């Protein structure tokens, strides 16, 4: 492996720095591949609890499948829904479940093993039959088995991880990241993923150091191995020696001191030396982050990702539940504003496993899902509107790619308003709406889009990958994902200019807005609002307060003439190093 270096007993593996910070501690290997459920003897006294766990898991699996089935009936061929029907019936097979429970009781072994062993018997019989039909049924049986085992294990996950640990995994879903965060997680280390994978974004928001893209780290590390994780440089050290540990601790100290110095500017506004005011706000996903955001000196919430409310559940929360959450967030953000982005999810979230998309990034996601599921959209719009009584709430629609989508979204909004009006439920009648510009078609049509809304917000993570046709999580092409690619810069400029022509403010809520290297450039391009992860707020503010808009414009103009991301990056690094030497940037 060319990313691995050995020095004495130390093994250093290079990956991608995903979230800053240093973590030192034992590894916990988290494997999602269910190859075989481990057999584990249980005590007589644990039997009832084990059976309860099994029943809970089966109930959750049933819920999941019903949700999928419901959806499948609308969207899929009746033939495809039969598979799901058969799976639901297996979960409701009282003879099978009775046998499994009896075996747990008499054989005193853990639920997942008995589920595995009992259901595998049927699978083997089906596979031994000579026809394809039975082989397919064997897959169904396998799916059901994995679904039950996964549900048993998910539930156990929380209790199984005891003490502090660094999670080592092939990949982490945002849901995994959240589940782990409820425990004492020191850091994350994964084989796959890039800086912009959702798990990386989430670990930064949660201030948990992470290194991703380490390729085969799950095969090099065992649970209990001591590792040192450097989330600033993107390396991990297996069996770190005393010298390495000291170096890393000094490094952490240095960064922490810088952060403390920044805290002095928290209460100041984000304004350039020549008095151009920039709106600096935060991207958040969880209500708990609002306070942290204020502590970091934000002027509001530029992106509240509501899809956090969907994590770990199979249906969207009720209007009442959503309303209460949104109301609290709006209340805690006041007097500043909060922009609620309606659920931005892939189809797999609304209907998990219901259908396989060859190419989910070009598929059923964002506003496309919501326009097809007006029940979900209307409930959410009503809940957000009801939370707007203090007049500090804005609504944003994700993944908009056509003008028609804006019209339809506005129609639903009008319907939600009319409903509330006729029910005499109060809301802000002047609530402002905006769209995310993250699809090239929206960027091209930005001026007409702007004429339909009150603001535009550039979502760079998706925009970059669509403009450059690069899947940011695909290791083979990940190096082509460059936020400083000239095509990206010109696209951003086009969007900002388009918004300004229509007197609409333009913000950015993608990762790029939080990169200190990009700040001068973005101010120079005329960006009105930066919405960034809370942890980088002070640093971005520091930069804004140290520059002149006039100079920033010259920097932007020069950068726009350059022809490669390397050239632009090197130019911006020089600017920072010469003019803002106290800002620590990774070369």
């Amino acid at each position: 492996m060319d990313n691995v270096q050995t020095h004495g007993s130390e093994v250093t593996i290079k990956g991608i720095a995903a979230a800053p910070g240093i973590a030192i501690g034992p590894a916990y290997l988290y494997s999602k591949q269910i190859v075989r459920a481990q057999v584990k003897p249980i005590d007589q006294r644990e039997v009832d609890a084990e059976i309860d766990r099994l029943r809970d898991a089966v109930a959750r699996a049933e819920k999941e499948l019903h949700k999928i089935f419901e959806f499948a009936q609308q969207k899929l061929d009746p033939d495809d829904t039969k598979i799901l029907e058969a799976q639901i019936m297996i979960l409701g097979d009282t003879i099978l479940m009775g046998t499994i429970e009896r075996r747990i009781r008499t054989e005193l072994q853990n639920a997942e093993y008995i589920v595995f062993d009992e259901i595998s018997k049927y699978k083997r019989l089906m596979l031994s039959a000579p026809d394809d039909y039975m082989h397919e049924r064997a897959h169904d049986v396998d799916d059901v088995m994995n679904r039950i085992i996964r549900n048993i294990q998910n539930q156990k996950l929380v209790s199984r991880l005891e003490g502090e640990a660094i999670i080592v995994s092939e990949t982490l879903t945002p849901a995994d990241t959240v589940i782990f965060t409820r425990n004492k997680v020191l850091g994350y280390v994964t084989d796959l993923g890039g800086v912009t994978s959702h798990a990386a974004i989430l670990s930064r928001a949660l201030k948990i150091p992470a290194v991703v893209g380490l390729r085969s780290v799950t095969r090099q590390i065992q649970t209990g191995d001591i590792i040192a994780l450097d989330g600033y440089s993107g390396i991990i050290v297996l069996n770190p020696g005393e010298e390495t540990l000291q170096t890393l601790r000094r490094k952490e100290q240095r960064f922490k001191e810088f952060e403390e110095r920044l805290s002095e500017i928290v209460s100041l506004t984000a304004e350039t030396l020549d008095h151009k005011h920039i709106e600096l706000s935060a991207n958040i996903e969880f209500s708990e982050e609002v306070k942290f955001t204020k502590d970091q000196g934000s002027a509001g919430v530029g992106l509240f990702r509501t899809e956090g409310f969907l994590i770990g559940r199979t249906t969207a929360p009720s209007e009442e539940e959503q309303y209460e959450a949104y109301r609290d967030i709006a209340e805690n953000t006041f007097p500043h504003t909060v922009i609620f982005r309606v659920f931005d999810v892939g189809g797999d979230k609304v209907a998990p496993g219901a259908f396989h998309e060859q190419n989910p990034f070009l598929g059923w996601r964002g506003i496309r899902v919501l326009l097809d599921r007006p029940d979900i959209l209307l409930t959410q719009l009503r809940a957000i509107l009801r939370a707007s009584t203090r007049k500090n709430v804005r609504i944003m629609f994700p993944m908009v790619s056509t003008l028609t989508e804006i019209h339809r979204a506005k129609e639903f909004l009008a319907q939600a308003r009319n409903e509330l009006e006729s029910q005499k439920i109060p809301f802000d009648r002047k609530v402002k709406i905006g769209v995310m510009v993250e699809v090239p078609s929206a960027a091209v049509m930005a001026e007409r889009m702007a004429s339909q809304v009150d603001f535009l917000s550039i979502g760079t993570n998706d925009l970059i990958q669509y403009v450059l046709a690069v899947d940011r999580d695909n290791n083979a092409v990940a190096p082509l994902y460059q936020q400083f690619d000239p095509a990206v810069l010109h696209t951003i400029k086009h969007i900002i200019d388009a918004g300004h022509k229509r007197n609409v403010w333009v913000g950015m809520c993608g990762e790029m807005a939080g990169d200190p290297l990009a700040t001068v450039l973005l101010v120079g391009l005329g960006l009105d609002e930066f919405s960034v992860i809370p942890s980088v707020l002070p640093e971005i503010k520091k930069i804004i307060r140290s520059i002149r808009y006039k100079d920033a414009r010259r920097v932007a103009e020069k950068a726009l003439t350059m022809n490669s991301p390397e050239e632009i990056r090197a130019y911006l690094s020089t600017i920072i190093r010469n003019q803002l030497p106290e800002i620590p940037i990774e070369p």
Partner: protein
Amino acid sequence: MITRTVTIKNRAGLHTRPAATLVKTAARFQAEFTILKDEFEINGKSIIGVMTLAAEQGSALELRFNGPDELDAAAAVVELFERGFDEE
């Protein structure tokens, strides 16, 4: 205990839907219900068991009923097979 022998008449055999109908019907009775085919013996009240049978059209099955309402159970189940599960 009583025993009946049936032949599968419907074209698709004991695939998912007939299997479900069979299991639901058997569940209405207290009597234990066992299906025997070749060397297999499965519980007729278990959908996963019935699915495993791979019984196609023309197969002969031996059905065993054992319990207080075994006669009624046998009558109901045999009728299903005779009607070909109301399928083609």
